[in-house]
C-alpha cells in the first residue's frame, strides 16, 4: 500500500513546459485517472512517477519517501506503456516473465505466475508467439500481463485499453476494477476517454496544457466542474456552453445571450458583471413545451434515447437529450424549457472558473486560475 504525492512538480523540455506546478496527492489504494486531451502532459506525469523522466522542479514521493533520485527498477512499480513496448525478440511468456526474472523469482514459481496472468487475460494459447504475430489488442493484453504478473506498490497504466474492441474493452474495464478491489493497490490510470475515467476511478485528475484543472471524484467532476474546460470535457454529449453577459438583477444575477435571458443561481465572489459563459447539460433541456423556440437541426438516435441538435436564436447551437419516444422532425420548430436550477456559470476564457456559489469549492484540489 502506498500513497503517491506530487509536490510542485514541474517538467520542461527546453523552453516548452509539459507539466506545470503539479500538486497531487494520491491516497494509498486509490484508483486515480489522469484525464485530458492529447498532449496535455499525462504520459509525462506518469513517466516522472515511473522514474523515466526527471522532474525539472518539485518532488515526487511514493509511500512517504521522495523518489526523485530513485531508479525506475527500485521504485517497485509496474507500468503499461502507451506503445505497449513489448520485447519483440521474446515470446509472450518470456515477456510476461521478464519483470519476475529481473527480480530473481525462481523459474518454477515464475512459470506459475505467468500461467495465472495469462489465464486472466485470455493469453494462454498465445504464450509461445512473438509479439509480431499478435493483433494490437492481443499485444495490449500482453503488456497488461507483464504489469499485472507482479504485485508492485503502484500500477501505472498509460491508456491500456485504447486498442481493444468495444466488447473486450468493457470486459477489461470491469476486470481492472475488480483487480483493483482485490489487490487494493494504488493505480494511476492515464486515459483520454472520459467514460473510462468516470466509470473506473475513485478520483479523476483532469489536465490541460500541463496544468491540473480539477482533482475530484467522478460525480463531483460531473456535477460541479471547476471550470469551463472541465465542464465541456466531461460528459457525452458534452455540456452546452454559451457565451454571453452576466448582469446583476437585484440581489441575484441574470445571464443573457441573444434572446436568451435566464436567472442564474447564487454566485460566488469571483462573479462580476460582464462576459461570462453559461453551461447546461443536454439533460437539463426539455423539449416539447416551454417559452423558448428553436429549430431542430439533427436527431441522432442511439436506441434508448435521442440526441437532438437545436439551433437557437440564429447562431446558438444546443444539444438536448430526449427519450426515444419523442418524435421530432428535422427542420421543424420546437419549444423547449431550461431547468434553471441546474445551470453552471463560468468566467470568461477557456478555463474560466466556476462562479456558482453552491459547492463551488467543494473539491480541495482545484486549479482553475490559469
Amino acid at each position, binding site marked *: 500500500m502506498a500513497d503517491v504525492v506530487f509536490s510542485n512538480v514541474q517538467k520542461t523540455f527546453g523552453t516548452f513546459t509539459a507539466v506545470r506546478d503539479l500538486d497531487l496527492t494520491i491516497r494509498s489504494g486509490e484508483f486515480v485517472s489522469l484525464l485530458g486531451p492529447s498532449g496535455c502532459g499525462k504520459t509525462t506525469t506518469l*513517466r516522472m512517477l*515511473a*522514474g*523515466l523522466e526527471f522532474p525539472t522542479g518539485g518532488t515526487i514521493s511514493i509511500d512517504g519517501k521522495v523518489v526523485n533520485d530513485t*531508479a*525506475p*527498477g527500485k521504485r517497485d*512499480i*509496474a*507500468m503499461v*506503456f*502507451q*506503445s*505497449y*513496448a*513489448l*520485447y*519483440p*525478440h521474446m515470446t509472450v511468456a518470456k515477456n510476461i516473465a*521478464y*519483470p519476475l526474472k*529481473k*527480480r530473481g523469482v525462481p523459474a518454477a514459481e515464475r512459470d506459475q505466475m505467468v500461467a495465472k496472468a495469462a489465464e486472466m487475460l485470455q493469453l494462454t494459447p498465445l504464450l509461445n508467439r*512473438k*509479439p*509480431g*504475430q*499478435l493483433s*494490437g489488442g492481443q*499485444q495490449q493484453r500482453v503488456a497488461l500481463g*507483464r504489469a499485472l504478473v507482479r504485485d508492485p506498490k503502484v500500477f501505472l497504466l498509460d491508456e491500456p485499453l485504447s*486498442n481493444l474492441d468495444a466488447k473486450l474493452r468493457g470486459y477489461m474495464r470491469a476486470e481492472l476494477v475488480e483487480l483493483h478491489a482485490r489487490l487494493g493497490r494504488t493505480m494511476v490510470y492515464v486515459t483520454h476517454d472520459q467514460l473510462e475515467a468516470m466509470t473506473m476511478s475513485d478520483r479523476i485528475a483532469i489536465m490541460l496544457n500541463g496544468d491540473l484543472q480539477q482533482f475530484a471524484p467522478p460525480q463531483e467532476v460531473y456535477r460541479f466542474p471547476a471550470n469551463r474546460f472541465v465542464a465541456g470535457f466531461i460528459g457525452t454529449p458534452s455540456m452546452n456552453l454559451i457565451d454571453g453577459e452576466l448582469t446583476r438583477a437585484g440581489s441575484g444575477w441574470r445571464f443573457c445571450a441573444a434572446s436568451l435571458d435566464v436567472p442564474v443561481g447564487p454566485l460566488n465572489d469571483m462573479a462580476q458583471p460582464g462576459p461570462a459563459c453559461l453551461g447546461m447539460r443536454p439533460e437539463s433541456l426539455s423539449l416539447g413545451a416551454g417559452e423558448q423556440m428553436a429549430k431542430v437541426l439533427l436527431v441522432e438516435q442511439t436506441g434508448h434515447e435521442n440526441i437532438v441538435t437545436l439551433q437557437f436564436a440564429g447562431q446558438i447551437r444546443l444539444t438536448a437529450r430526449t427519450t426515444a419516444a419523442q418524435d421530432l422532425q428535422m427542420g421543424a420548430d420546437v419549444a423547449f424549457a431550461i431547468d434553471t436550477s441546474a445551470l453552471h456559470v463560468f468566467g470568461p476564457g477557456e478555463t474560466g472558473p466556476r462562479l456558482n456559489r453552491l459547492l463551488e469549492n467543494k473539491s480541495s484540489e482545484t486549479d482553475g486560475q490559469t
Partner: protein
Amino acid sequence: MTRRILFNLFAWSIVLAVAFPLFWMVVTSIKPQFELFRRPPTILPETVTFEHYWRLLKETNFLIYFRNSVVLSVATTVTVVSIATLGAYSLVRFRYRGRESLAFLVLFTYLLPSVVLIIPLYLMLVTLGLANSILSLVIAYTTFALPYALWLLRSFMAGIPEDLESAALVDGASRLGAFWDVILPQLLPGIISTALFTFILSWNEYLFALVLINSDSARPLTTGVMNMLVSSFNIEWSLLMAASVMMSVPLIIVFAFLQSYLTRGFGAGGVKG
C-alpha cells in the same frame, strides 16, 4: 513482353560482366602451367590440377599471411563494433552538450582521404613503438572504419523505440541489463551489417598494410601475396589466382553465414504505430 526480355538480357549481361573475372580467376587457378598461355585460351581447363594450391600451402608463407589476416580482421571487427555500439547508444540515448556536433565531426573525419592520414599515423605508431605489428594495423583500420560504423549503428539505434528500454528499466533491469536484454537483440541486424562492412574493409585493405608492415611475420594476405608473387620481372599468375580464390573463401563463408540474419525480420511489431 519484349521489354521484359530486353530487361532480362540487360540484367544478365551485367551479371556476366561482373562474374566473368571471378570465373576466370577460378579457372586459371586450376589450369596446369602449360595450359595458361595457350592461344586461343581454353574456357574450361582440359586438365584440372590443384598443384598451385599445394605449392601455395606447402612452399610459401601463405598460411602465415592468412592467419595474420584473420587475426587482424577479427580483432578490428570486434574493436570497431564494440566501440561503435556503445558510442551509438550514447549518441542516441543521452542528451549532452555538443552531441550533434560530435556526430558530425566523426563523419567529417571519414570524409578525409585515408592517404592523407597515412604518414601521420605511421609516425605516431612508430613513436608508440607499435610499428610493424598486427596491432598497428588494427589501430589504423579502426580509425577509418569506426566513423562509418558509428553512423551506421546510430541510425539502427535510433530506430529502436525508447519505450522498450524504459519498459526494461521499470521491469527492474539496470541500464546495462536493459542494454543487454533488449537493445542488443534489437540491434543485431545493425551489428551484423557493421561487422560485415568492417571485416571486408580490413580483409581487403592494401595501402596501410603496405606502408605500416614490412616484416613477413606480420603481413596480411593482401600485401603478402603481392610481395611474394608479383615482382618486376615475373607474375606468378596461377599461384596468384589460387591465392585469390583462397582469399575470397572466408568472405564467401562469412556472407553465407550472416546473410540469413540480415534478411530475417527482427523487431517487427513490438511497438504500436
